[in-house]
């Protein structure tokens, strides 16, 4: 459903809702475009005039600091005007009120919505109902997808490792509730890595997870053996209440990433985390701040990836097709 909604007849991104359904070449194009934006941050004037006069609305129905600020910075570095709306909402989608919000923002001549919502499919819903000239980017919907996070992770891996095909990537943590993991698994498999592993207790794995194209491990030392990339996931506080996990201390004992656990990984393995990190839960401080950690590079790359996606989606909504 995403593919038809987010890609137009010419193969351009009309919206960016999900990594699933995009082709390898489209993911590479996003990373190549991000590469050309990465240099903008090193200049004395850290912005380009590409989207001058356009308005990007950050429509956040769920709290976020990093994702919202990097989207804001990305839009500003493209010279767009940015409106940040933090809309409090109940857990269920109130279709009518969301549509009313959209119509009001469209009446203010918004050109793009960046949507985060606790309900899976919210960004797709917005994309289906937005005016034809408006582009929509998914900044995280429920347990479904977080495509810009996945792409900034892919961009980080590419910048450090170069090629995807020889890589073994291990994803550790709450796969069940993680929209980040879901998007990462699709992206890694589309880019053709050698293998994707997930490491988690059974209670934090979705049923039939193997069908996503992953190898399942329940032991961290075995799971990270010979891995080139280890991605740790955030453990949401509400998951630590004892229903799915005995305690966060026990979780750290069995699934926390430490230098000892990393011993079986490749010597040049890198450690990633989408943030914000819970020190002493998903990984210890030595690992988070250690030489293998690329966690802060991920944050920097998030700006370039979001500049790329915003400009590509905006470009597909401009008048004539590119000559």
């Amino acid at each position, binding site marked *: 459903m995403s593919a038809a909604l987010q890609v137009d007849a010419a193969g*351009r991104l009309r919206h960016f809702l999900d990594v699933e359904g995009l082709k390898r070449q489209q993911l590479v*194009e996003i990373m*190549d*475009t991000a*590469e*050309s*934006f*990465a*240099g*903008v941050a090193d*200049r*004395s*004037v850290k*912005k*380009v*005039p*590409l*989207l001058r006069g356009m308005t990007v609305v950050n429509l956040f129905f769920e709290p976020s600091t990093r994702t919202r600020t990097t989207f804001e910075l990305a839009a500003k570095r493209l010279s767009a005007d940015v409106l940040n709306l933090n809309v409090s909402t109940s857990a269920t989608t109130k279709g009518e009120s969301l549509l009313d919000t959209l119509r009001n923002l469209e009446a203010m001549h918004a050109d793009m919505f960046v949507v985060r919502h606790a309900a899976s499919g919210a960004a797709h819903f917005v994309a289906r109902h937005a005016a034809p000239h408006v582009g929509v980017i998914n900044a995280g919907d429920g347990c479904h997808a977080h495509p810009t996070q996945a792409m900034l992770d892919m961009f980080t891996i590419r910048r450090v490792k170069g090629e995807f095909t020889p890589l073994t990537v291990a994803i550790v943590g709450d796969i069940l509730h993680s929209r980040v993991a879901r998007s990462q698994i699709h992206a890694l498999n589309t880019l053709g890595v050698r293998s994707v592993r997930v490491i988690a207790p059974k209670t934090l794995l979705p049923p039939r997870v193997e069908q996503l194209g992953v190898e399942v491990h329940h032991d961290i030392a075995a799971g990270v053996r010979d891995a080139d990339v280890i991605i740790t996931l955030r453990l949401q506080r509400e998951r630590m209440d004892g229903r799915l996990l005995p305690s966060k201390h026990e979780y750290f004992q069995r699934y926390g990433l430490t230098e000892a656990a990393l011993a079986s990984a490749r010597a040049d393995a890198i450690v990633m985390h989408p943030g914000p990190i819970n020190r002493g839960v998903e990984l210890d401080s030595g690992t988070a701040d250690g030489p293998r950690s690329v966690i802060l590079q991920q944050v920097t790359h998030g700006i370039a990836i979001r500049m790329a996606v915003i*400009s*590509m989606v905006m*470009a*597909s909504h*401009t*008048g*004539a*097709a*590119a*000559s």
Partner: protein
Amino acid sequence: MSAALDADALLEQLATGLGQWLAACRRPDPVMVGIHTGGAWIAERLHPRLGFREPLGRLDINFYRDDFTRIGLHPQVRPTRLPFEIDGRHIVLVDDILHTGRTVRAALNELFDYGRPASVALAVLIDRGGRELPIAAAVAGTTLALPPEHHVKLTGPEPLALAYVERGGGREGERP
């Protein structure tokens, strides 16, 4: 239709002309910047011949074009690389074909986002006329007076070749 254009011969004329111009204007320690793609190809050939101290800079002006809202993003934008400080420097900007002047306008805007150069001079392989902005080349390999619907296209990088093409309504900046 005009006679065939010899890219190598025009490059020789441009190299000679630019060498004389640099000697005459006495700007200290100039740097060279080529505009992607054709201008960078020309600059790569000029740069080693004219005794520049700093490495060659490359500019991709696609984020500075004035037609984004009409034709969108170029599918292959290359990173701009300026391996030197811009502030206070004398810059020789190189492009292949000078037509409306819009590409050079975009390049100037981008350069000034990196710093404040002491001066910018333009060197082009061909000035084919048809300016829409007050922009002029300091040195050109040759100057032509082409009707608006006629264009010159440079292909490369190896070998460099020039060809006449005819297309309606095409403009500089709408690079195919």
